[in-house]
């Protein structure tokens, strides 16, 4: 179990008064304080780590968020922001003395502007909710994390979420224009707007991916893009992971950047096929989903070029989607991949390292070796085009030994990613899960530099405490 800081005794002692104070700030059913009802809020998408919070507050407006933060600030109470609770790194893990501020009720789309191609939405709007709102005009919001059905845009901003299509369209940070944020002191600030580029410091860039360390984001101005004329996915099946990896390299080297280039190994293919019935090749060791966009003729042209490259790697099969339904099924399988692993294992840990793509075959081989030595199965699902790996380590949470091995195995994979020139997390965030690995990637000076920035925003370290930064500075210094 991950170490959390000791709760502040004065906060715990003041619990009744604090809850009464919070009740005065939000509508009547907006404060959850009964022990039983707090339990479902004890964890997020990383269910291995759990901690029941002091209380949960569900504000409905930015002003209510500001009032809650001001109150917590005045009372020295820690705050954990939460959206849909889909974080795979424990980004919304509560603390025993913390108030969870849930933004799920702020789920309105405030403005859509097609001429200037932006939408203003509240933090609790789901990622897919934005695209759904602009789809009939042919527009979409580009970043598409696999959890896009459920995950909320506020969380996307805080984690700088990516997705399968960010190879072409970029990650969250590349698709934002403005934010409305609330500081821990309860001040409401406007960052950016509807224009491009920041005149002063790039607060938008800093806040994106800041994992709730700096402020709470309540409103977001996102760029919306006109979709292409059409898109088509192709499934390419190969005899070995390494072969599929080499094929990825060859595609990129040819000067073609597909909109998506996804990799799945055998266990992942089988789990996802059981869920999506997408016609995945069950006889393959590895499969690529390659998607191209454009008119029908442009798609044919690009798929022809890609097919020619794939054929150099002795594929088992190459199959181009023949209909919108077939493409939807292909993506349903990929996007449900993590959950689908729930069909073959009661629990999993999802890793998120990124590596230089040229090291893919080597890293895959070494993960395979580790899998054998730990005696734990792995399903591999990657955004292959940009080197972002998602090895899913399967374990049984009812067996403490198994969980402990999975944690250690995961840490070894991430260390390997850093060793080959990559990083700990490509799109899921450090959260609580990778917090203690930060010294692998950053030295003490670098961590202190980041800590000082946090302090500039949140002098008392009340916001999402115990995430991102190792708890004890001496751990960092020792590394």
């Amino acid at each position, binding site marked *: 179990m991950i170490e959390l800081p000791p709760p502040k005794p004065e906060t715990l002692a003041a619990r009744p008064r604090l809850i009464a104070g919070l009740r005065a700030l939000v509508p009547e059913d907006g404060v959850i304080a009964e022990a039983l009802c707090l339990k479902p809020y004890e964890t997020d998408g990383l269910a291995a780590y759990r901690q029941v919070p002091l209380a949960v507050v569900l504000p409905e407006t930015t002003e209510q968020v500001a009032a809650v933060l001001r109150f917590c600030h005045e009372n020295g109470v820690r705050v954990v922001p939460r959206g849909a609770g889909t974080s795979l790194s424990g980004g919304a893990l509560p603390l025993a003395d913390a108030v969870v501020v849930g933004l799920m009720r702020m789920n309105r789309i405030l403005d859509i502007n097609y001429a200037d191609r932006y939408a203003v939405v509240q933090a609790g709007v789901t990622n897919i909710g934005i695209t759904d709102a602009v789809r009939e005009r042919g527009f979409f919001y580009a970043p598409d994390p696999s959890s896009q059905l459920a995950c909320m845009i506020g969380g996307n901003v805080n984690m700088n979420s990516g997705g399968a299509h960010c190879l072409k369209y970029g990650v969250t940070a590349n698709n934002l224009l403005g934010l409305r944020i609330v500081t821990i002191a309860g001040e409401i600030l406007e960052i950016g707007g509807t224009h491009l580029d920041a005149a002063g410091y790039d607060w938008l860039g800093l806040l994106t991916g800041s994992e709730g360390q700096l402020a709470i984001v309540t409103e977001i101005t996102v760029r919306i893009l006109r979709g292409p004329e059409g898109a088509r996915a192709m499934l390419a099946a190969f005899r070995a992971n390494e072969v599929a990896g080499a094929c990825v390299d060859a595609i990129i080297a040819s000067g073609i950047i597909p909109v998506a280039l996804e990799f799945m190994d055998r266990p992942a293919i089988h789990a996802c096929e059981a869920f999506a019935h997408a016609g995945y090749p069950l006889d393959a060791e590895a499969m690529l989903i390659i998607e191209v966009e*454009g008119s029908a003729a442009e798609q044919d042209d690009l798929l022809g070029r890609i097919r020619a490259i794939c054929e150099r790697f002795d594929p088992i099969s190459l199959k181009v989607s023949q209909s919108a339904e077939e493409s939807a099924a292909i993506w349903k399988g990929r996007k449900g991949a993590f959950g689908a692993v729930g069909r073959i294992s009661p629990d999993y840990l999802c890793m998120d390292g990124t590596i230089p793509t040229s090291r893919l075959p080597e890293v895959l081989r070494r993960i395979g070796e580790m899998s054998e030595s730990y005696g734990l199965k792995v399903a591999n699902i990657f955004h292959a085009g940009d080197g972002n790996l998602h090895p899913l380590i399967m374990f049984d949470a009812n067996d403490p030994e198994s969980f402990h091995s999975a944690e250690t195995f995961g840490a070894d994979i991430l260390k390997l990613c850093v060793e080959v020139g990559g990083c700990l997390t490509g799109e899921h965030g450090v959260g609580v899960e990778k917090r203690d690995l930060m010294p692998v990637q950053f030295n003490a000076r670098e961590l202190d530099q980041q800590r000082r920035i946090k302090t500039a925003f949140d002098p008392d370290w009340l916001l999402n405490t115990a995430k991102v930064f190792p708890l004890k500075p001496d751990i960092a210094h020792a590394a």
Partner: protein
Amino acid sequence: MNAIAPEAEGEIADVIAEAHAHATPLALVGNETKSNAMLRPVQAAATLTLRNHAGISLYAPKELIIAARAGTPLAEIEAAVAAEGQQIIAEPPDLSALLGGAGQQTLGGIVACNLSGPRRITAGAMRDHVMGVRAVNGTGEVIHSGGRVLKNVTGLDLCKLLSGSYGTLAALTEITLKVLPASEAVGTVVLAGLEAERGVAALAAALGSPFGISGAAWLPREAAARVPELAAFDAAVTLARIEDFIPSVAYRTERLRAEWAGFGAAAILEDAPSRALWRAVRDTAPLGHASGDAIWRVSVAPSAGPRIVAAVARLGGNCFLDWGGGLVWVAAPARAENHAAITHAARASRGVWWLMRAPDALRASLDVVPEEAPALARITRRVKEAFDPQGILNPGRLFAGL
């Protein structure tokens, strides 16, 4: 003034540590192609130039990554990636003609100013492609952020914070950029004779089309006349660029021309003239300016661009629009009241500005970028102190007293 030009990162760190110890303000520069014209003048006891800390340190074309030391001339990087059929995505401009700088601009300079060209409208800014940085903060500590991979959210994103911080937080020493394959072909669809409002509407239609527009500019007649490839139109021009494989460019330029039928009969420019004219737009060649003019760069929502054009016209200044109408390059006589009028227009449209060129005395007395709300300004000050507690790096460059 004292000029120090170290070669190694360690020496740069030593210089800054020393300056920190003695609270000696430093002007951080590269080849000074922009620093003597842009934003507020820096009052420093010494100049630290990074031009000798140069050279490409890593280029992995298959991984779409290039890393170079801050003093590396941008042209050297552009040549290296071009040799592999790749390009710098944000198409950074060369403003030496506009800002009067001699010499070659450096990678560090363009990243520190976060300057991007026409492709910014669809492909992102320089800061969007900075995958990693090494830097020396104001106490002389070497720090890094990001890395050499394409996706990285480990820790706070200092790559973005330091991009566009104009050397006021840290001295960038090494930068890793994402690069992409250069397009096989370029084509431009041109509408002649539309005034700004209508031109920007056409650009909105183009950017709202499925044809992947990678450049969208509007030039008034006198600006178009300064670009040889456009002079023959003898009119204001509305330009949309498409970059892709050869058959795609042919197909999409035709489709866009059809899409634009309601705006008038559009012409299509082939590859070579297209490349030349977008380079001119990138480097602000269409902007007419006299030696006594100040230059502003204004960023607004694209549909507000024509309002800035109208405000500039009232001053008798020159301007043109890029980024679909959202980026306005403005030239007008360097006077405080002109600054007030332009910034008022930008503010009225919820936009921002940068004073890119003006005489020192004027630059020192104006808000060269918009002032921040008090609560945000407090954060700015604290973040500055978090990097540079003595306030020795480019003091006053963005805000007086910071």
